[in-house]
């Protein structure tokens, strides 16, 4: 069993109004060093697989079919960690 973390982000060419609003809010708070904000999603999956590679593959498949929309989002399988048997 693997704990797999997927990261889904808006494509660089897509404007991120939510990130922009957060950026403005941070500036209003005086945190003017922040030069840009992009908001994405982190999705954690628990996957029954024989190997780390198989777990990563299953996670990629989940991202391609449902978790990310290729029109506006990119995804990355960040990590896959084997879970201790209970």
């Amino acid at each position, binding site marked *: 069993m693997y704990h797999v973390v997927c990261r889904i982000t808006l494509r660089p060419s897509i404007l991120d109004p939510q990130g922009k609003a957060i950026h403005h809010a941070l500036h209003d708070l005086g945190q003017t060093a922040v030069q840009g904000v992009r908001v994405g999603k982190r999705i954690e999956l628990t996957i029954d697989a024989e190997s780390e590679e198989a777990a990563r593959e299953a996670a990629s498949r989940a991202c391609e079919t*449902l978790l990310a929309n290729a029109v506006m989002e990119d995804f990355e399988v960040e990590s896959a960690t084997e879970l201790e048997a209970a």
Partner: protein
Amino acid sequence: MARIAVLVFPGSNCDHDAYHAAKHVFGQDARFVWHKEESVGDADLVIVPGGFSYGDYLRSGAIARFSPVMKDVVRHAKEGGLVLGVCNGFQVLCEAGLLPGALMRNASLRFVCRDVHLRVENAETPFTNQAQVGDLLTVPVAHGDGNYTADEATLDRLEAENRVVFRYADADGQITPEANPNGSARNIAGVLGENGNVLGMMPHPERCVEAILGHGGADGAVLFRSALAHLGESVAA
């Protein structure tokens, strides 16, 4: 009498408006089709209604697009059957790949609920054949994720193939940034699928088909009249 199937997902909330318009205002043979059903039957027109299917979890329309009934909607569309997706229905059709592009969070980050003016850009579609290019329709919008986006090449192709059916305009019919309620690319409010039989739009024509409701009156009726004319039906209203 045209057979009109109105899909119902968990979280649909404009299904009854669409049914009412089809059945009571236009006197057609309308029926609800629950998303778990595997067929839309012999429907002439499938309406994918507005609402918040599956609570908009993950992305608007992302889960509904895998409901059992959607396979048959794709089949119906591929065979040339008419499909109208409104609001969440537009999002579902984009997620299902029947329409290009995607609907993102409104540029204002606010839910927008008001009347807008739509300029008819193509009056030779199954849904606008009773209108004229340049006609202004007053139709309500009510959405948080209506910001139409697609890559530049797709947008260029949509325009070249005359598949932008409606654009957000001001009261004089001018296409301006101020008239754009959600930040949609090129003020696009409604687009046609590549075979011309599938239309997705954020505004709600089914909510304005009766003059008694005021505002724009019955400007949404022209879509229903057009679809019925396309299907060879005489129109009751």
